[in-house]
């Protein structure tokens, strides 16, 4: 991959009819989203704007509703109120697979890999939506389907290379170490060349070395493949280092948003983390 693929600093965007800069640049706009199960309020009136190309982190204490928010963004949950738009299109009522088609990929807190399949098959499944040959062509295999497999195989090898997975290419993923599985899951999400990738605690349970490797992978993917990242993570050190902007959730409410520097000095954030009364 050559240097020209690295993004240049963002150019000033041409003025659009609206004056609100955050909406104009937003890839994902979460507007007044609330979510409740039965009488249980999980999210209340959350607003977020994630700009194209940034690494945006969501932090907050356990039970703050971080994962639920991701679930709303990629369609597992339908918000009780509010609106989520992606690329300026309302997506709060779209299905998971519809959103996958639009370029939203995702990893999970507790791994959701295809355990009995090999690394390469897991990654190929990431490109599932791009495989279009018919059933009959697949039954005959030679010709169209084989070519398609070859092309995707080549594309997936790029991800293998990027995430340094060559050593476990043909291994059954269920038998690999936890850290490697996390990396494969990230790779599977990347393999679809998504516009947006949602990472739910991609470094949980990793050693310090694995964590720094993983954040390097995330950064590389973000810059090289131009994918916008929304990230949930508990390791504040890594978050501060990796993120462009951070939102803080506490008990379903967004209590702060801003650059890592702003967040680290925000009083309400400190209060939420230290448990001071507010």
């Amino acid at each position: 991959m050559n240097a020209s693929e690295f993004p240049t600093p963002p150019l000033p965007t041409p003025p659009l009819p609206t004056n609100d800069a955050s909406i104009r640049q937003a890839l994902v706009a979460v507007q007044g989203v609330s979510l409740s199960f039965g009488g249980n309020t999980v999210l209340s009136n959350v607003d977020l704007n994630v700009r194209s190309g940034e690494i945006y982190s969501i932090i907050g204490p356990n039970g703050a509703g971080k994962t639920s928010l991701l679930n709303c963004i990629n369609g597992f949950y339908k918000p009780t109120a509010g609106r989520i738009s992606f690329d300026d299109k309302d997506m709060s009522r779209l299905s998971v697979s519809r959103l996958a088609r639009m370029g939203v990929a995702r990893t999970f807190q507790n791994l959701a890999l295809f355990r009995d399949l090999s690394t390469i098959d897991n990654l190929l499944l990431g490109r599932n939506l791009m495989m279009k040959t018919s059933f009959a062509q697949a039954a005959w295999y030679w010709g169209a389907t084989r070519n398609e497999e070859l092309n995707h195989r080549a594309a997936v090898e790029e991800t293998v290379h990027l995430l340094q997975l060559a050593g476990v290419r043909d291994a059954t993923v269920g038998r690999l170490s936890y850290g490697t599985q996390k990396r494969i899951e990230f790779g599977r999400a990347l393999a679809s060349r998504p516009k947006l990738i949602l990472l739910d605690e991609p470094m949980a349970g990793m050693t310090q070395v694995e964590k720094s490797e993983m954040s390097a992978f995330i950064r590389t993917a973000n810059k090289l493949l131009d994918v916008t990242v929304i990230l949930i993570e508990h390791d504040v050190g890594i978050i501060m280092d990796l993120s462009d902007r951070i939102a803080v959730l506490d008990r379903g409410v967004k209590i702060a948003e801003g650059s890592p520097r702003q967040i680290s000095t925000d009083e309400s954030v400190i209060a939420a983390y230290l448990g001071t009364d507010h």
Partner: protein
Amino acid sequence: MLYRIARRLPSSHSDSLRIIARKEDRAIALVAGLFILLVVPAIAGDYVLSALLIPFLILSIAAIGLNLVMGYAGQASLGTGGFMAVGAYTSYKLATNIPEIPIVLDFFLGGLAAALAGILFGLPSLRLKAFYLAISTLAFQFFAEWLFSKVSWFWNDNASGVVSIPAFDVLGITIEGPRQSYYLVCAIVAIMTLAAVNLMRSHVGRRWMAIRDNETAARLMGISVPAAKLQAFAISSFYCGVAGALWSFVYLKTLGVSSYSIDISFKIIFMIVIGGMGTILGSFIGAAFVLLMPVVLNAVTVALSLPIDTGSVSSLEQIFFGVLVIYFVLVEPRGIMHLLGKLHKKLVSWPLNIGR
């Protein structure tokens, strides 16, 4: 021992897409194929062909069918016998009422009818999981048994529930002797096996396996889970339907509902559990094992002139298969295929692995 695997890694993507990765293994497969086509029919007696090899090949198709839906797509089915019956009775109705249709097309249409039944009774799989689904396929099994024993239209209103199959020909050759039957079945098995292998190494099979391993993640990959499940049920039932038609037309030469009872459903489950869930070759190995075991057990009791009556031999058989199924499910979930794989690994690295 046989050959070295060192430096036999695939050197290009197209290499790694082959059905059999290594050159040496391909040579072995070719020799085996020639042996099956040329040598076996020449040396095997009529008994071996018509009482062992033909039923083995036919039930292998059914085992592949069940393996597709259960081993690959992860949807439990206890209704194999029912789907086989649909294939058999459809083919029979077509063959007797519209004799102009070539018989092989009758088998194909029988498979299609079974596929339709598969879709219909696979519908509950969209809402039901695991056991519930197993129960709904069991319902189909009992319903099919009842339907084909009560509605005499299916066997042309004959007085007896068991009807004989009329003679038929393929490409102008009347299929009568065991050798002709053998070649016919071989051809059908070869085509269907190849199609199954191809489907399972393409995106179709990958989608099914994804659903088996993690349905939520499969949805996230944009897989339409309902469509893929119904597809799996349809293809699986198609295989079972064709196998069912062949079972009557080529092997039994009679058609009666008792040949498609729940016993055969269980027999085919045993085949894939013992042979290896999620492998095509395992379906053949399992079929051979399940069919040969009773023959071997009988031969042993006769050879040792053990004082055991036939009833006890069949009870022993039940116990034996029960124990094997429990063993394979608990200890070796990938079946004999996996055991063979381990053996193969040992052989190719011999003698360097001595002591390991």
